[in-house]
């Protein structure tokens, strides 16, 4: 397939190649027809929280889906529909496709109920990723809100795979309650890899000994050097706006703060315009964008 003239995309986008040009550990995306889905089989279904599930999938045709941390796929339930879901797996283990999905609508409801053996349709991977290795030589801080930890997980695994190239690595994670904490089984492994992990919740049950409060409150006190920090932020847009502002107030340059924007991606390849944010097509220009690039757009109402 060739790029249609006049469309806001390039051949690189169609091939699913990283638009940032950053190479990530040999994880070059698989060149496939971007509009064609492939069947993937559910290998494992893990209930993370009462409404969130992690699926591990393998390609029915045996061809691994190589991806960059921060990219998403169009994940489809046969006969129901497809939705953009960020990949939450390890970019260094592309033979296993992992998605962490929250039950929020018709399609996601079907997806979270896909049992082992079920076949799902997968298109992609699409979009510009985190390119976390741009932070090598300095500190990296990942700020996650709620389900936003899932798209950040591949970036963290990428950083951990090259841990010696980074200074301090900090995860600041805010979520609703202790019962909503994702990847609970992994937090200790991250800490063992010399990652500082701070969790804060909106609602603390009786006797809770952890932090209660907003994730942005962790930013002024977290141990990173703002002048040499790359910040990756993912969560609800209101939370990202406040988190980005707190990072900039701390002294992180706006072009070193990257956010993963969520819009209604439909085609995934910059054709249909469903996910347009003024001059940006979030599906190909994003989902990861710098705060410097989108700060002014985030201030525009109803955009």
């Amino acid at each position, binding site marked *: 397939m060739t790029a249609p003239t006049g469309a806001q995309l390039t051949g690189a986008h169609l091939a699913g190649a990283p638009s940032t040009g950053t190479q990530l550990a040999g994880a070059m995306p698989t060149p496939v027809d971007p509009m064609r889905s492939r069947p993937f089989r559910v290998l494992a279904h893990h209930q993370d929280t009462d*409404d969130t599930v992690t699926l591990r999938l393998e390609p029915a045709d045996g061809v691994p889906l190589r991806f960059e941390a921060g990219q998403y796929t169009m994940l489809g339930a046969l006969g129901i529909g497809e939705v953009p879901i960020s990949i939450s797996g390890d970019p260094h283990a592309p033979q296993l496709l992992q998605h962490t999905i929250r039950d929020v609508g018709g399609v996601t409801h079907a997806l979270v109920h896909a049992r082992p053996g079920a076949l799902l349709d997968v298109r992609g991977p699409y979009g510009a990723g985190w390119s976390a290795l741009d932070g090598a030589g300095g500190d990296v801080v990942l700020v996650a809100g709620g389900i936003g930890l899932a798209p950040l997980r591949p970036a963290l695994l990428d950083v951990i795979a090259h841990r010696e190239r980074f200074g301090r690595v900090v995860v600041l994670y805010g979520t609703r309650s202790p019962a909503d904490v994702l990847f609970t089984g992994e937090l200790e492994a991250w800490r063992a890899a010399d990652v500082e992990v701070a969790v804060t919740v909106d609602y603390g*049950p009786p006797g*809770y000994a952890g*932090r*209660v*409060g907003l994730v942005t409150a962790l930013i002024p006190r977290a141990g990173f050097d703002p002048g040499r920090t790359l910040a990756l932020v993912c969560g609800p847009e209101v939370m990202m706006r406040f988190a980005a502002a707190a990072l900039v107030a701390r002294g992180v340059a706006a072009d070193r703060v990257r956010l993963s924007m969520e819009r209604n991606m439909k085609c995934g390849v910059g054709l249909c315009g469903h996910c347009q944010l003024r001059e940006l097509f979030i599906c190909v220009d994003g989902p990861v964008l710098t705060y410097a690039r989108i700060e002014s757009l985030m201030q525009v109402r109803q955009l």
Partner: protein
Amino acid sequence: MQTIDALLAEQPFFAGLDAPALALIAGCARNVHVGAGEHLFREGEAADTFYLLRRGRVALEVHDPRGGTLVVDTADEGDVVGWSWLVPPYRWLFDARAVTGISAVAFDGVCLRGKCDDDPTIGYALMQRVTHVMLQRLQAARIRLLNLYGRP
């Protein structure tokens, strides 16, 4: 052993205050240690102290007869706890419980109010700092009210 003046000078909360002002404020302060599980104060009691945490975690709690004691906020190293000492009727609105053992600088509210009245310049400087903390907590509470992570 570090003097309280020197301790205060290191705290971001007091950043920008000159040495005479810090000395004046330190005159109302003492070092305290509170064991894990003990209360710094309880709802309804006279609010005569505020705390600057040097180590450990404090939970602000509200008792709910239906659901036990709920944690509404926590404070960690470098945070201040309590502002009911500043405004009438000087009564605590929440419980403050030491989640871990804590070390803090405790300020006598009556003493501090007296010094603020005597020297409004210091009073204003202190009020600005307390207001800054209150504003941050209020903004955080408002955003939490949006229940951003809840069901859409």
